[in-house]
């Protein structure tokens, strides 16, 4: 498709349409209409317009946050733009790549593609078995031509030409003699169109592979505190996006425990604080009852179990706390996941203590792995490693609202029925704690900062069809190379007896631009001439 036209309708469409008659044109029958529509759809012009539409349609997908890629960004976008949101929602701008109009464009493009390649496959099938075209009468009129005389017999010269052309991978046809004139017609470069067709077919293959992944694959994320385990079932995931035809029973029954997590940071230089590597140690089982295996999970090195891949995609801190309620009983003890806010791993989190009595307790605040303080910034984290960890929390008491039946985010405190503990001067009572410190709550009870655990975010996904897509795209490149760089070329050699010597005419014709046709014709001349120097 890159150098030949998409379909014949281009040439015919505009050029050969007769001038419109003054009266109303005859109505098209349904068959003609369908044929007309099909020809319009499969014309190169339409394909080009569709390609541009595809490019244009993809742009909003890079500007507006996308539901299945960054749902958190979508939520904050929706909160920030209350008027735009309903319009965007209607237009499907939050999931461009699943939207009706985006699908319509690429489906039309695919139909256009099929409509283009099927007829061309037929043409190519016929053309592939065709013999090289007959030798033109006047070789001198071709773009490149030479003539010279040799002493050898015409048949010997012709045989030499045939052999040379065969060696140069031409398809060769020796034309029978007419009054002593014999010729060789040769053609090569049939693979250009083959490459062209292969490329376009492989676009379809890639699309099929991609579609299989979208339909039957899944991708889930889970945050696991080091020391804890995970078993592969839907309820365990923090986020899960299945393909439209995915069945939860397809989840492989794997399970694992995160034993350890290491991260190293640059401690000096201009990029201090940048991580240099991280890794998590896993014990995993591909199914219950299977032997426990160990793996070290690092970035760029996923763990593959049963066709599913486990990736290390993030990490953070989970401070361990002990909360005692107004009666002095331990109401909560253990790690709480805090989410990093920036590269210094200043992390935000919420501790909910529904078991506290007489009132439920809630905490909200920051975890600072390496505590720093300035009057201007307030408390902040100087460095991402947990060198001097401090929690700085606000404490609330009242009703957490967890019994209302509404699902709640574990990272969000519903403060509608909670009261902030304040100091006597009315300022919030900020609890700053280093590891091992305990803070008493004004209304009874206490919170103790016991230590720091790490958590890792693991992504578990399976994208069937990725092999199909990969093969498709590799075939596509192969086809592309063929269609761009194979040069179809025709050459002819004609010999005739003249004045006791043999007159040899050689000519060539390139069917694509830019090849070194002269060079090849000259070399052919030299080879045919052999050692007989009688060139004119």
């Amino acid at each position, binding site marked *: 498709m890159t150098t030949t*036209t998409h379909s014949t309708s281009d040439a015919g469409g505009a050029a050969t349409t007769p001038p419109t008659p003054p009266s109303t044109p005859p109505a098209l029958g349904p068959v003609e209409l369908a044929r007309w529509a099909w020809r319009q759809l499969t014309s190169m012009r339409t394909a080009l317009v569709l390609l*541009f539409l595809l490019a244009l349609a993809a742009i909003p997908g*890079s500007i507006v946050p996308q539901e299945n890629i960054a749902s958190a960004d979508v939520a904050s976008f929706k909160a920030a733009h209350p008027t735009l949101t309903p319009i965007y929602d209607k237009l499907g701008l939050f999931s461009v790549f699943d939207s009706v109009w985006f699908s319509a464009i690429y489906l039309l493009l695919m139909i256009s593609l099929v409509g283009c390649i099927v007829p061309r496959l037929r043409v190519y099938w016929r053309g592939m078995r065709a013999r090289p075209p007959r030798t033109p009468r006047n070789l001198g009129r071709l773009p490149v031509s030479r003539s010279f005389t040799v002493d050898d017999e015409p048949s010997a010269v012709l045989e030499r030409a045939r052999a040379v052309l065969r060696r140069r991978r031409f398809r060769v046809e020796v034309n029978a003699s007419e009054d002593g004139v014999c010729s060789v017609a040769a053609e090569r470069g049939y693979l250009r169109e083959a490459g062209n067709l292969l490329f376009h077919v492989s676009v379809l293959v890639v699309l099929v592979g991609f579609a299989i992944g979208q339909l039957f694959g899944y991708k889930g994320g889970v945050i696991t505190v080091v020391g804890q385990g995970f078993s592969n079932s839907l309820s365990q995931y923090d986020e899960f996006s299945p393909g439209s035809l995915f069945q939860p029973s397809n989840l492989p029954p794997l399970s694992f425990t995160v034993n350890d997590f290491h991260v190293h940071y640059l401690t000096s230089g201009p990029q201090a604080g940048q991580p240099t590597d991280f890794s998590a140690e896993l014990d995993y089982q591909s199914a219950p009852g299977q032997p426990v295996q160990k793996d070290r999970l690092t970035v760029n090195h996923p763990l593959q179990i049963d066709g599913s*891949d486990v990736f290390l995609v993030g990490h953070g801190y989970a401070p361990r706390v002990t909360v005692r309620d107004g009666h002095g009983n331990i109401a909560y003890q253990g790690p709480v996941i805090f989410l990093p806010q920036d590269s210094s791993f200043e992390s935000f989190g919420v501790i909910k203590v529904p078991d506290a009595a007489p009132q439920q307790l809630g905490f909200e605040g920051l975890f600072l792995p390496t505590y720093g303080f300035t009057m201007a910034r307030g408390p902040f984290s100087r460095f991402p490693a947990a060198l001097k960890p401090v929690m700085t929390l606000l404490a609330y008491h009242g009703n957490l609202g967890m019994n209302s039946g509404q699902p709640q985010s574990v990272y969000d405190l519903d403060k509608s029925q909670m009261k902030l503990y304040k100091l006597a001067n009315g300022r919030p009572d900020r609890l700053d704690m280093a590891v091992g410190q305990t803070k008493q709550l004004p209304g009874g009870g206490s919170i103790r900062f016991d230590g720091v655990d790490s958590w890792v975010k693991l992504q578990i996904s399976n994208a069937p069809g990725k092999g199909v897509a990969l093969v498709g795209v590799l075939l*596509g490149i192969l086809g592309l190379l063929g269609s761009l760089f194979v040069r179809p070329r025709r050459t002819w050699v004609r010999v005739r007896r003249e004045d006791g010597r043999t007159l040899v005419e050689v000519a060539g014709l390139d069917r694509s*631009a830019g090849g070194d046709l002269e060079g090849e014709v000259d070399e052919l001349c030299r080879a045919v001439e052999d050692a007989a120097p009688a060139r004119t």
Partner: protein
Amino acid sequence: MTPAFFGSFSNHAIAFASVVYALALLAHVAEWAMSRKVPLRAVSQAQRAVEQPAAQPVPVGSGAPADPGAAPVVPLEEPDTDDREFSIDRFGRIGVALTVVACLVHLSAVVTRGLASDPARVPWGNMYEFTMAGTFGVTVMYLLLLRRYQLRWMGLLVTAFEVVVLMCAVLFLYEPAGPLVPALHSYWLMIHVTAAILASGAFAVGALASALYLIKDRAERRGTVRSSGYLARLPETSILDRAAYRVHAFAFPIWTFAALVAGPIWAEYAWGSYWNWDPKEVWAFITWVVYAAYLHARATAGWKGRTAAIIALIGFATLLFNFVGINYFFGAGSMHSYAGG
């Protein structure tokens, strides 16, 4: 030799390379300035086709006399003009020679940049380094294709491009050398980014050819091409168009490999999903689609020529936007964000 030594070597080398590019630019400016006053007799394609190639005078181009499309112009026979032709040609050759020198210095800057971090790594971990490597790709592509496609008329623009972009890189994008973030610890960084750099370099060369094609085509249609000067000495529009096509045809499969093979494979390892509709991926896809449209348009009646050249420039614009725009406008939203700060 310590990483710090290599780092400072790289910084000096890039400054030195910029200076040599500037000198090459001056040589090309001199070449074209001198040619302003030297009138030329344009030889039409038809005339030349009749002539035997061996009988053709040696063209102004960089010394491959066999190609009939090499030079659209033939110097007048007067001895004075011949002298001027000779010095014009000499300045052109000096320009190319200086570009080769600059390219070598540029290479040394790229290599030492890689050695400047501990452990040594590929020198394209951030915006500054990618700019440095990308501009190197442009020069390499220009020099590689110079002979084959007779591109010396492009020297002025390529060297100007190098000087301006390297200056911007040093002024606005500079970051001290340092280790890579863990996500980049992969040999796919090498494969993916090398292919992206090569393709971008070739697309840049192709965009220059397409732009010159449009300029000359416009001047020809308005009848404002004079008998001397830059436009007159540019190859004929058909040759410009063909050079642009060949460079794009060379770049397109490489881009396909970089964006649609190496990228997804690495993404599969790094992010667990081979295609994430990340802004960078979306724009790489847009670039691919636009260049695919260019290759198709060139073969379609009513689209070939000007429209196709405009499409090629749009393609290059999307490529640039992907490089600059994504990092600065969508920095936080893109997993490919490697802009400073």
